[in-house]
């Protein structure tokens, strides 16, 4: 594989050694070759991308100032609005929805002279952990095409892992960037809640959703984060804080870095291969003089339950607008307004979305609100306090991203609870609102974490999760970058596995 990183691409184009057109053509070629099987992309806008690339090349030639992501091909999860380009959320209900506006992050990418190649597949409305809940297609894991890529940003993870683009944007409500990043061997960053504007991100769980990059290197994640974060007056929950130069702050000594390790994340349900890889990663840090400290997250065991109350409550309300009246799918020949509503939603939503709408409607209903929603908010406050306590003692917290490596297609589709538990280590960062990153820390050797199947060779990727304190992305990225300087897991490609 000869796909450049974000940094390499931008610097080569800026320096004139390659053209944006050639970079984009190469990326489109990989898509052409790979995506017929992998199905990462919901739509590809090749002609527009080439036009944009030519415009960038023209400006470089003239010596005009260009942005930080000049000529860098990007793909964007299809729940992020793109003006004039369909934004479907991989749902039948929005199959033909074309937003009249760009999301804040898309504006930022364009302003930085990145080239939008297309939109990536996801679990419908970002609800799922395998990208199997998509009305568009099932996306395959490039390391083993019998396995899921994770989700819900599965298309974004696969696009980066397969070399279709050096960067993809995803969204993370309970692990939807980090978990597919781990399953596909890429870096996935969920910024602190409020760091990146949600304007134009189709809401799932508004108090949990956050947009972030999936890249091959931590350095690339830092560069992209710098481009997309910052205050946006159109998002009331966006933080009015300065944006540090994340890429410039990556080189920090590991010595003295305090890494918290919560035993709660290494208990029952964690596969041995994942445990060993994460422990080996901690040894790498230890070897560099980092201090490994035991911290406790006593309320972690309630996180999944808490999450599925808060997230579904918000989702039931956020998804109420898809009713066939104003835009999107509308049932044919309705008898009356109730028939229009119910058949539109019956036809337009998939099973998992319906399940969560019903769950969320239930927990907000009169008589149940206190027992479920209010109690979940209290638990959420306790989880946040656990992190405050932990971050008073350490700089970052380390854990696995997922209990296992990528599971088989269809393995958990009939067992929602088992699917929900795939996010057990990632959910709490969303509930607490902290930043967190997933980065490759090893491979399972081809046996598969479930002991069956597998592709031979290096096997499936394993992710290390580092969780940072609120708005401490600099420290988080530096800790992750330090690990990548000492290891080469992120330099492997799926083609190596074959």
């Amino acid at each position, binding site marked *: 594989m000869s796909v450049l990183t974000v940094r390499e691409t931008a610097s080569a184009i800026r320096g004139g050694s390659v053209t944006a057109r050639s970079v984009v053509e190469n990326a489109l070629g990989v898509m052409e070759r790979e995506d017929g099987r992998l199905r990462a992309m919901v739509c590809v806008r090749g002609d527009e991308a080439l036009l944009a690339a030519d415009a960038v090349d023209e400006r470089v030639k003239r010596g005009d100032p260009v942005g930080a992501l000049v000529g860098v091909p990007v793909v964007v999860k299809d729940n*992020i*609005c793109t003006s004039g380009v369909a*934004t479907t*959320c991989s749902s039948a209900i*929005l199959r033909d*929805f074309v*937003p*009249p*506006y760009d*999301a804040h992050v898309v504006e930022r990418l364009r302003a930085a002279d990145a080239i939008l190649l297309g939109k990536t597949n996801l679990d419908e409305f970002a609800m799922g952990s395998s990208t199997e809940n998509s009305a568009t297609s099932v996306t395959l894991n490039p390391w083993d095409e019998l396995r899921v890529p994770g989700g819900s940003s599965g298309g974004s993870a696969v696009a980066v892992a397969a070399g279709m683009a050096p960067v993809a944007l995803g969204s993370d409500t309970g692990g939807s960037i980090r978990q597919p990043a781990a399953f596909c061997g890429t870096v996935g960053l969920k910024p602190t809640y409020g760091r990146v504007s*949600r*304007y*134009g*991100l*189709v*809401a799932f*769980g*508004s*108090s949990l959703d956050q947009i972030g990059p999936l890249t091959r290197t931590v350095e690339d994640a830092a560069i992209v984060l710098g481009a997309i974060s910052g205050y946006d*007056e*159109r*998002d*009331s*929950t966006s933080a009015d804080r300065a944006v540090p130069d994340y890429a410039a702050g990556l080189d920090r000594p590991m010595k003295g870095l305090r890494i918290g390790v919560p035993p709660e994340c290494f208990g029952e349900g964690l596969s041995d291969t994942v445990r060993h890889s994460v422990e080996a990663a901690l040894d790498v840090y230890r070897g560099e003089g980092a201090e490994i400290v035991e911290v406790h997250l006593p309320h972690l065991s309630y996180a999944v339950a808490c999450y599925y109350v808060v997230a579904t*409550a*918000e989702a*039931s*309300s956020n998804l*109420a*607008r898809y*009713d066939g*009246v*104003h*835009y999107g799918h509308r049932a044919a020949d309705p008898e009356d*307004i109730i028939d229009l*509503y119910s058949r539109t939603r019956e036809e337009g939503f998939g099973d998992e979305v319906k399940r969560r709408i019903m769950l969320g*409607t239930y927990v*907000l*209903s*009169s008589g149940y*609100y206190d027992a479920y*929603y209010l109690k979940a908010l209290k638990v959420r406050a306790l989880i946040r306090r656990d992190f405050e306590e932990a971050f008073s003692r350490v700089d970052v917290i380390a854990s696995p991203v997922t209990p296992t490596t990528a599971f088989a297609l269809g393995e958990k589709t009939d067992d929602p609870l088992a699917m929900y538990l795939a996010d057990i280590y990632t959910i709490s960062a969303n509930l607490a609102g902290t930043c967190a990153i997933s980065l490759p820390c090893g491979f399972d050797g081809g046996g598969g974490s479930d002991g069956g199947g597998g592709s031979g060779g290096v096997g499936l990727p394993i992710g290390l999760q580092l969780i940072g304190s609120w708005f401490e992305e600099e420290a988080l990225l530096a800790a992750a970058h330090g690990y990548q300087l000492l290891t080469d897991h992120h330099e492997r490609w799926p083609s190596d596995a074959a």
Partner: protein
Amino acid sequence: MSTDAEIQTRLIVGFEIHVQLATKTKLFCGCALGFGETPNSALCPVCMGLPGALPVLNRQAYDYSVLTGLALDCEIAEFTKWDRKSYYYPDLPKNYQTSQYDLPLASNGHFEIETKSGTRRIGILRAHLEEDAGKNLHDVPGCSLIDLNRAGTPLLEIVTQPEIHDPEEAYTFCTELQKLVTYLGVTHGIMQKGQMRFEPNINVAITTGGTEYRTPISEVKNLNSFRSVRSAIEYEFHRQVHDWKSDNGYLIKERPNENRGWDDDKGVTVFQRSKEGADDYRYFPDPDLVPVTVTQDWVNEVRLSLPELPAARIKRLTTDLKLTTEDAAAIVANRATADLFEAAIEAGGPATTLMKQYLNVWAKLANDQDASIAGLGVGHEAMASLAAMTEKGVVNATAANKIAEALIGSDKSPETLAEEMGLIAVLDEDQTEKWIDEAFAENADAVKDAVSSPKKAKKAAGFLRGQVMRISGGKANPKITGDLIEARLAELASEG
């Protein structure tokens, strides 16, 4: 069954009032308030409820609400949040309304009104801010159309205590409240345009044999005039008492409360729906908006913009300027007009003449132009000068009318206009005598009547004065002219 002689009834009315705030833009987006515009022309992704769009609070709407809360003597909450109220309706694009549920921005206030039985203090339970919905249009057969221009318009909902016990009192409360909020400038307050919507909650306490019974509460919708508010309450009172008499089980504990509509043509309320099985709106805090923390500084800043309220101002004008209560109330009905009036007084305008011109001259001109007096665009100094000129006799009343009309849209002073229009009264007695000579010569019969017939004397003298005014082209001073005519006639009489 009780007989009429044995029962005592007491009407109980509380109001829910929706006030459409006159902000420049909608509550959670930058769209202009689109009332009366082409349907669906004042829209953006936010008020259309498009996927991914997010709300941002309009600070002016909050300030207006706090101002109203202060004027109603409410406690202003230090902390409030936004809640989503869920229900499906085609004119509600998100299928939830962003409102304030358990933490209203203002509470525990009161509003005083003057009634026949003296001053009444009506408690204000709470006031909160919420977004309005769009409108469903059913004009086209076979389909329903939706206009979202109104969607997202800020509404201040004011809820009173159930402390009104008389339809007339309800009428006074509503009219006075409307005056207050328009005076504050937080709304245009036009009921016909739905900018104020009054919804009375009505029931009756019936006492018989020492026991009190209460009828179910009905909430009456679609009231678009003060008169219909009063009529609907009167109607409901009689209906509820009647329904209880024909069925003693018609009680709040046994029957559901209901929504009723008002049919203005028939003068009756009409059953709309029962409130049995309370609606479940699934309120929860809106995660897209941040809570509002209202600092004392913020409240103080708003308090600075709180004007002297109408009741106090009327009282002051009657005391300080000796205006009648009716006159003062007429002036205070419009805040800008009252401000202009006081500025004209401040600039030296004589109060009585100014008042007369306000009611007779300026009010008439304003009425012709369908504007307020302040809306005429005539400055306080011009008004003060014109009143002073009139009082001094520099111009007469007819001339003052003409000058007033000429002042609209002109940047000239009344003095300049009076001169240019040749309306300066002639105070010179010699000139006046010459006009009188002419009038006497032309009207010998009238002169004769004035001198010889005591019965006709007064009328004839008045006629002669009118002739002098005519001959002088309106420049003669009526008083000087009158005095000179009187003297001349007295002389003729003594000679005769």
